[in-house]
């Protein structure tokens, strides 16, 4: 199935290079949504994401001939272009991602010595306020909002696997193809990123206790 998708994409790229409007529209419709969501998750801004998608396809129009089938799939080629544009966008804007107020406060508390430290057994020693699971007491929507902001604070190489696997539901293998790195790298970065996210969210605990997050409670 994946192979036929790739074959179709390669065929479309070939026709696109010859100036076929329909081929361009078809390849655009096949990939724009995935690229847009990826860019939204990476930038936190639909406007910037739309710009990234536009720049990605403009690059494709101008440099269709740069695609080399031996180096990867057309989808990976497009994601590679999008990643480059995201990198340029960040360099150009020198942007700092706006954090929600609660998360910003929580992070600054963490910087003041309240970070998750591990003991020899891999866990932090019990401290005041840690008797409950750190995300208990938050509404789902609240957690989602905080998580969205926390993801934006991750370094790129951690944010990318989180975006692809946890938000977009891609397998490790699919993410590895798009990120052009080994599956093991995706896996280890993802694990590390998830732990970082928990650490970032931990100080944001608010409100009354809620048990929705218990295992099996979803």
């Amino acid at each position, binding site marked *: 199935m994946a192979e036929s998708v790739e074959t179709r994409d390669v065929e479309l790229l070939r026709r696109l290079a010859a*100036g076929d*409007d329909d081929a*361009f*529209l078809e390849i*655009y419709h096949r990939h*724009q*949504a995935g*690229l*847009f*969501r990826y860019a*939204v*998750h990476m930038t936190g801004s*639909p406007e910037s*994401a*739309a710009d990234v*998608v*536009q720049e990605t*396809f*403009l690059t494709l*129009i*101008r440099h269709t001939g740069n695609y080399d089938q031996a180096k990867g799939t057309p989808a990976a080629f497009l994601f590679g272009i999008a990643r480059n544009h995201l990198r340029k966008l960040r360099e150009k804007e020198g942007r700092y991602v706006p954090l929600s107020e609660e998360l910003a406060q929580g992070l600054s508390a963490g910087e003041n010595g309240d970070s998750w430290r*591990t003991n020899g*057994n*891999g*866990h*932090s020693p*019990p401290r005041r306020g*840690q008797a*409950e*699971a*750190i*995300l*208990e007491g*938050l509404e*789902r*929507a609240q*957690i*989602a909002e905080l*998580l*969205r902001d926390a*993801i934006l604070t991750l370094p790129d190489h951690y944010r990318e696997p*989180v975006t692809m696997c*946890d*938000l*977009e*539901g891609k397998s490790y293998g699919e993410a590895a193809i798009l990120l052009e790195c080994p599956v093991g790298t995706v896996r280890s970065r*993802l*694990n590390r990123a*998830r*732990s970082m*996210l*928990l650490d970032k*969210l*931990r100080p944001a605990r608010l409100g009354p206790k809620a048990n*929705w*997050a*218990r*295992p099996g*409670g*979803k």
Partner: protein
Amino acid sequence: MNDEMTCREFDEIVHEFVRMELLDVSVREAALQHAEHCEPCARRMADATALAVASEMIGQSAQGAQTPARVETSLLTAFQKHHRRASWRRTLEWASVGAAAAVLLVFLWTVSGRPRGQSPSVPKKDVSSQSGMPLDAQAPATSKGDAASQAPDAAVADSSLSETYVASDFVPVPFTGAISADDPGMIVRVQLTPASLAQLGYPVAETPDQELVLADVLVGEDGWPRGVKLIQ
């Protein structure tokens, strides 16, 4: 590993465990057993679950997101413009190649067809309306003085090169400036009425009336006629 899973080991697998990505049954059982007896790890598991649920929520909320329609419109326009330009570029490239090939062929034909030892013929040049002398359309481009002295010889050479240049030499058009040796002027063959010939300063008495006359007009770089020469 069953009973001996440490908190560090638990920490390494907890996210995959709650997302059901951990398929090894024995490891799953060991993790569950560890969480039952370790309160911090049980909390860690709850947090990891909350994180997984929140991630799923974010993913689902963005599921229907599409790039704004204006992007598609502007991209399609850019695509068509790009390929129109590319098509023109290709056409121009081919035209350039064709022109270069034609020039090369003419050059080769000229070089191979010319009698040995004869200098390349350059039509026109060195015409002065001030001199009042007949102008030589086939004289090689040299200085004005040289042209005046070489005109008779060149006129002889003309007749051997082109049988049509037999009727007369160029007659300068009155009240026009001199044409210099390096002026890349050109000769235009036209049909003229006797009246037009008279306007160009040609002695019309020498031409039959009521007939169009075939003539070569020597035109300077500025577009003004400098000399006229009858062909028949």
